[in-house]
């Protein structure tokens, strides 16, 4: 049916935008985990980024300034996590959960004066000719700039981790911090930088929601997307390319189940909403069965506290 075919473009476009915040947050967390740190505070950092980005854009009218400040705010929140877990050696899981609670409260506090304020739109790409292509034109060439930035981050992160010396060192720190330390690498400094990067990416992910996706500030605007991003990293078995696939899958299923309902197709929407999580569990089971594969991908020192003197 032609009516159904015409839906492909909008569905693709919606899928790409739904995947973008997940992509930013998950790529950031991936780098953090590759360095051997587990930061469960993604949701909190996203919220702080979302509200700070929104506040700045509302004041200055510039969405680029908003995104820049969101990245800084996310990194600032992550720095708190870094100080607590890397310098004061606090438990990473507990600190990460606390960071999420802290972010929820802090963002609500900062956001009090910004509820219900309109902000300017983020410009969308418009390439004459390409954007007007039927079916896929709008989806591929008519998105916000941030969507493309997110896509560009995938090869960038991959290249950094697997194509550069610094990436190799970061992975070494994540695999065996004692050995890396013995070789003279500054484990804590490297991990701190990774945590800051993760925070900045989460901040941008949050700002994408408050500046672009639904341009408004509302308490709890992330609605659990930080937790999905954490699941995505595991789902992707710590590989950037698979994070992209996973983000599209999670985003695509969200959009698809809404369309299925609108068309009156008789599949329970809850079943579709459940699928990405089911897939995560299946992936976990599969990689856990094969010890070699886990060793290959999951950072061996993930979540372990590092004592420089030990």
């Amino acid at each position, binding site marked *: 049916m032609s009516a159904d075919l015409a839906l492909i473009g909008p569905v693709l476009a919606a899928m790409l935008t*739904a995947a973008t915040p997940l992509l930013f947050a998950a790529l950031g967390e991936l780098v953090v985990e590759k360095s051997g740190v587990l930061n469960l505070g993604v949701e909190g950092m996203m919220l702080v980024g979302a509200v700070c980005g929104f506040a700045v854009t509302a004041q200055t009218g510039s969405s680029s300034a908003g995104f820049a400040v969101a990245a800084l705010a996310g990194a600032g929140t992550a720095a708190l996590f870094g100080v607590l877990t890397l310098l004061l050696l606090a438990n990473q899981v507990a600190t990460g959960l606390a960071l999420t609670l802290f972010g929820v409260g802090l963002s*609500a506090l900062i956001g009090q004066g910004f509820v*219900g304020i309109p902000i300017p739109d983020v410009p969308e790409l418009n390439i004459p000719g390409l954007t007007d292509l039927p079916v896929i034109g709008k989806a591929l060439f008519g998105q916000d700039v941030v969507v493309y930035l997110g896509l560009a981050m995938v090869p960038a992160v991959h290249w950094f981790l697997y194509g550069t010396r610094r990436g190799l060192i970061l992975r070494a720190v994540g695999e065996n911090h004692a050995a890396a330390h013995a070789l003279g690498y500054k484990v804590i400094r490297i991990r701190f930088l990774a945590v800051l990067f993760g925070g900045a990416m989460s901040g941008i992910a949050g700002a994408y929601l408050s500046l672009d996706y639904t341009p408004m500030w*509302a308490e*709890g605007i992330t609605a*659990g997307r930080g937790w999905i991003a954490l*699941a995505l990293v595991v789902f992707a078995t710590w590989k950037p390319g698979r994070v992209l696939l996973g983000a599209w899958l999670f985003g695509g299923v969200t959009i698809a189940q809404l369309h299925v309902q609108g068309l009156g197709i008789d599949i329970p929407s809850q079943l579709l909403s459940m699928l990405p999580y089911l897939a995560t569990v299946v992936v976990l089971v599969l990689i856990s069965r094969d010890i070699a594969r886990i060793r290959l991908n999951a950072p061996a020192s993930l979540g372990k506290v590092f004592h420089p003197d030990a």
Partner: protein
Amino acid sequence: MNRRTMGKTLAGLAAGAAIMALGVGAADAQEKLKVGFVYVGPVSDHGYSYQHDQGRLAVEKELGDKVTTTFVENVPEGADAERVIEQLATSGHKLIFTTSFGFMNPTLKVAQRHPDVKFEHATGYKRAANVATYSARFYEGRTVIGQIAGKMTKSNIIGYIGSFPIPEVISGINAFTLALREVNPKAEVRVVWVNSWYDPGKEAEAAKALIDQGADVLSLHTDSPAAIQVAQERGLYVFGQSSDMTRFGPKAHLTAIVDDWRSYYVSRVKAALDGSWKSQDTWGGFKDHMLFLAPYNPALPKEIVDAAEKTRTDIMEGKRHPFQGPVKDQSGKLVIAEGKQATDEQILKMDWYVEGVQGKVPK
């Protein structure tokens, strides 16, 4: 337990801690009646919870010398709610309003343990000697906006964003659809459930999905203004929910069904103060000032506004009922006979769609 509910549980714990702090702070306010409010969303949602808080503020304004009020926002429906309500009851609150359907069983459980505390539960149907219920006849507003939608649509597809398939929402969809098809028999309603009261991202996605499928007028029964923004961006029309959401989409926002709890809350707190409070069920509509319509968009033609106003006053004066027979369900079966009207019981337990709604009610 997935990570998301874990996050919510933790949020509930934080809410609990917040109350304990409040309980200590308010303890010196002797003699005053302590009134507690439990909200499902943030006060700043500019929708459902915001309107309940307007009611609380009205109580403070009118009876501030006799009462102190406490509110807890963002309380998840379910087990966490019980702890929050329990903490309010044990910290000396003698009248507690629990403002969402999902607080029904937690409210009753806590009420059983605290017979000296009075409870008011919104939109539920279970009562006890110390638990009263109250709700607004939201569906009366749906009749008016359904009629407007029928005259404004060009594609004859109306998108409807639902929260949860409970009778309150389904009766709204049905009242909307009946009025829609009365003025425009070719129009149909497509429903998308987002399974949340408050998730701006998902509400926006649902709005986009419905628009992509051809809807040119949207109605919603969720609490955030996200769909209003989407309609504004796409140059289409939308009705606000619970609260006047005009500023989120000045061109798109045609009107909104606004909940108004102010007079009810003030009267119930007064009753608790003078000892005349007793458990009862209140279900008020336009007539009882429990809901009203936000200002009509200037873009609406005068004859449509006039017709809408006539429908509203007819409902108010009892000349028109939103569920006036004959009403058929989707299979064509006659549910409300010619000349009959749906009983309150039928509306409160509605779990079927009328003709003109696409898809099935999720089970």
